[in-house]
């Protein structure tokens, strides 16, 4: 092949890339990823059959970077994608019948999720769904408080409590207890209990995820109608202004940070050795032990024990990744936060948000907008605003209660099963249990019971251990892999408001991805959503994942793929935030507005263009991020 010919082929390939993304079947996965398919349920796989491939190639799929920035382990897929898909889809399609949407279809590639929205276009069906939506959503809006505080929250807490109470033995006993005989039980409870507990756990996980979506769309739709009403009344209103009007919401997601503030204040109030112990070089476990042996320390620990459940049930990461762990299991983060909070208090700083002030500022802005309206318009505005404010807290609260609190409990219980399997010599490491999907774990447990039943010296297969080792390698390779931001042909226009608000997917952004796919990336200016106003210049700190969040130093600009609730305590250190993904209701946007920091979200690829130490300028008004100077 002549050079010339080769060049033209490359150019053609490039120009093709500009028009569309690869189809799933065209993806070239690294060799190390071979075998990933067997880890995930079949129905999540692309191009299973010819008719399915045809259907999938007709659609546009975007990588759900919000929830699978990193691949999901097979078991984690159980409570996220699996439980999630059913709950999300049926909420839009069969519970609330949101007229134009039948939710999103999900596929998985090497642990990364891809979504594709399904629109309803049949006029008759739209009409039918409008009627149902109207009746049902209206009921929820009118009774939100009673339904949320009276039913939802207790129900979610009950699910967590029941999961905790599920019995998982360390190991099955040598011989079953005599009561099997004396009480005429006729069965070995132990094996039945293990299987029952596991089945119940997966049921409860599914149930929790049903709850997850109960108010979620209602919250976003209320936000959307407020946005639309505001746009009608004030044609040029900015997203940022709308964001400001819905800020200062007293959501549970801010509680962990508030509780840490309370603990830091308590430490100083108690005095004695307490602040010193907390700011020492000791490990969290050593600190706790020392504190429990100290008079004031014990008082501190009383408060600590009181608040740790639920408020330290914060997962490292976004809540979907078991391997990231949580505060309560690894106290490194809360103790690091405590240390820096005590330092700040000692140097005379105030902690936390001045909530009253934030609310006063917000109310002032709302009042000012209202002042520009006539009486009818004002009534319309007030109605939309009140609805939004009634349910909006849910947009953040569900993240705390489901993704953090409940998931931590679920993952914790799964580790008990993992230990059980290690003790029965089927696995080497309790964490390996997450390398198997929901159905496989049921098999594993049955096999454990089966070989136990056969008695001492029975054959125990090593194939699960071997498979775990193989999968571990595949999974590590999946983490290194960089998936395509989307698959298939992009729509001319991305119109789905939820896609824009939640995932930050816009027509512009999709086109931007196409260009990045085809260009070298020498650009110095990135465009995203101006999600929290203000301009700032400073050194960047790129934080790819939660383990490194504590590297963020005072005065730096946080650059991250996305942020999540566990990061909230470090935000006060930052001067501003830039994210790859997420729209104006993403976590980073909401938290930055609460802390009064400028933010640009959904830039697409800030973390790949910006390096730690680069000098950047971000403009929360225009949504522009500029790299002023590369790090030496």
């Amino acid at each position, binding site marked *: 092949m002549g050079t010339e010919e080769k060049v033209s082929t490359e150019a053609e390939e490039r120009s093709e890339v500009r028009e569309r993304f690869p189809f799933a079947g065209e993806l070239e996965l690294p060799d190390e990823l071979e075998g990933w398919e067997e880890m995930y349920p079949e129905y999540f796989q692309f191009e299973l059959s010819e008719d399915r491939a045809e259907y999938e190639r007709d659609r546009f799929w975007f990588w759900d970077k919000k929830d699978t920035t990193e691949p999901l382990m097979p078991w984690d897929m159980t409570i996220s994608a699996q439980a999630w898909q059913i709950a999300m889809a049926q909420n839009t399609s069969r519970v609330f019948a949101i007229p134009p949407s039948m939710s999103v279809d999900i596929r998985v590639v090497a642990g990364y999720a891809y979504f594709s929205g399904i629109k309803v276009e049949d006029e008759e069906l739209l009409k039918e769904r409008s009627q149902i*939506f*109207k009746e049902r959503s209206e009921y929820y809006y009118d009774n939100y408080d009673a339904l949320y505080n009276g039913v939802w929250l207790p129900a979610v807490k009950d699910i967590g409590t029941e999961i905790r109470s599920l019995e998982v033995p360390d190991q099955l006993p040598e011989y079953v207890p005599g009561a099997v005989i004396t009480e005429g039980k006729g069965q070995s409870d132990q094996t039945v209990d293990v299987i029952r507990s596991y089945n119940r756990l997966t049921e409860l996980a599914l149930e929790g995820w049903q709850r997850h979506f109960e108010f979620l769309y209602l919250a976003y739709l209320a936000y959307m*109608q407020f946005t*639309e*009403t505001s746009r009608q009344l*004030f044609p*040029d209103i900015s997203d940022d202004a709308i964001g400001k009007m819905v800020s200062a919401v007293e959501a549970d997601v801010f509680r962990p940070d508030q509780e840490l503030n309370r603990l830091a204040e308590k430490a100083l109030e108690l005095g004695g050795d307490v602040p010193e112990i907390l700011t020492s070089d000791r490990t969290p476990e050593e600190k706790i032990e020392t504190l429990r042996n100290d008079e004031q320390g014990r008082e501190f620990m009383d408060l600590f024990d009181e608040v740790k459940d639920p408020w330290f049930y914060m997962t490292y990461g976004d809540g979907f990744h078991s391997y990231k762990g949580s505060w309560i299991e690894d106290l490194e983060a809360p103790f690091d936060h405590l240390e820096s909070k005590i330092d700040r208090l000692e140097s005379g700083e105030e902690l936390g948000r001045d909530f009253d002030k934030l609310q006063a500022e917000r109310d002032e802005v709302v009042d000012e*907008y209202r002042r*520009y309206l006539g009486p009818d318009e004002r009534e319309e505005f007030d*109605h939309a605003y009140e609805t939004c404010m009634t349910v909006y807290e849910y947009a953040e609260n569900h993240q705390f209660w489901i993704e953090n609190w409940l998931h931590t409990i679920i993952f914790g219980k799964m580790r008990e099963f993992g230990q059980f399997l290690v003790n029965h010599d089927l696995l080497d490491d309790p964490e390996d249990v997450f390398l198997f999907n929901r159905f496989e774990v049921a098999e594993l447990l049955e096999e454990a019971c089966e070989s136990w039943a056969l008695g001492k010296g029975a054959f125990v297969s090593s194939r699960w251990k071997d498979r775990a080792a193989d999968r571990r390698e595949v999974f590590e390779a999946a983490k290194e892999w960089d998936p395509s931001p989307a698959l298939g042909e992009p729509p001319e226009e991305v119109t789905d408001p939820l896609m824009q608000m939640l995932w930050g997917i816009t027509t512009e952004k999709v086109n931007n991805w196409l260009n990045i796919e085809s260009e070298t990336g020498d650009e110095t200016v990135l465009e995203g959503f101006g999600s929290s106003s203000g301009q700032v210049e400073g050194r960047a700190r790129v934080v790819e994942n939660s383990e490194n969040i504590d590297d963020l130093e005072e005065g730096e600009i946080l650059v991250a793929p996305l942020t999540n609730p566990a990061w909230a305590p470090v935000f006060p250190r930052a001067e501003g935030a830039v994210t790859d993904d997420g729209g104006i209701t993403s976590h980073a946007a909401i938290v930055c507005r609460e802390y009064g920091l400028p933010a640009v979200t959904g830039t697409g690829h800030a973390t790949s263009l910006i390096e730690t130490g680069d000098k950047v300028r971000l403009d929360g008004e225009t949504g522009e991020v500029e790299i002023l100077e590369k790090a030496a």
Partner: protein
Amino acid sequence: MTEPTYTLHFEAEECHKDNVELVGGKNASLGELMDAGESVQVPPGFAVTTDFYEAFLEEEDLTDFITDRLADVDYSDDNAVAAASDDIRDHIENAQFPSFLEAALEDAWEQLQADDPSDDLQVAVRSSATAEDLPDASFAGQQDTYLNVRDFEEVKERTKMCMASLFTARAITYREEHGFDHDEVLISVGIQKMVEARTSGVMFTVNPANGDRSKVRIESNWGLGEAVVSGTVTPDSFLVDKPVYKIVDRDIKEKNIMTAPTDAGTEEIPVDDDRRDVPSLTADEIVELTDIAKMVERHYSAPQDIEWAIEENGDDKRFYVLQSRPETTWNKEKEAKSDEQQSKPSSGSQSTADRILDCL
């Protein structure tokens, strides 16, 4: 009868919108703006009142002279009107202010000088008409502006010229045609510190494009505001959300021409090459102007059309409001719209679900 007031500083309580017959419309509005809020600064100055004008004419026997001179004119003869105008204006301009009026004027002038930190006070002298129902363009004299005036002799001369401008040929004809009595029409003069504007322009406290009242549209150019006001240049333009100060739209133009002051008035000069493409306002200045717009609008309880200027000397930066009038287009539109809406059922009765369905 109350004591006559010959001069009145803008910040004086009496210099406000209900006292137009004493200080004229322009001076009254400047006085009014002084009360609009802390950050609304008006260039300092004072009004030479209609009491002053009347006393001047009376003491110098000009009242009778004017009445007599105009009584003989054949208004159908343009030359005759012009001759009468020249005659009257010469008389006014050549007369001397009686000593008590000159003393009052000098007092006011010295006070203005004393309050000026620069030691080189330069003022604009302009007439401030009292008859508001006279259309701007036809009421000659109202636009008379003398810039860069720096000594008392010149202040006196220019003040007299403003007063004389009440008797231009066009003004005389206009009054004749509309049945105004010449001796009942009065004039006030404003003596105001010159603003050496680095940047100036106008702002509307409503988006003129769509009537969105939560916005302010700021238009700006280098130098004095006349090029912007008259529309001879396309200025930089910024649309700002008033409650949150967010700039939702900005349009930076190539600015080739700006207005600069001369002794006789103003002239248009080319903008230096290196400033043509540069925004004529910084983000902070836009925020400050938005604040000013809000205060003025709130003071008048109606959308306003505001002229402003920024003066910058080293670190000293001052924002001045030069004028404000009601923004009429959208006020009328809004009234029309609300009439229309009254015949329709109120949208306020729509349910949340209905609203959501509307936007899905």
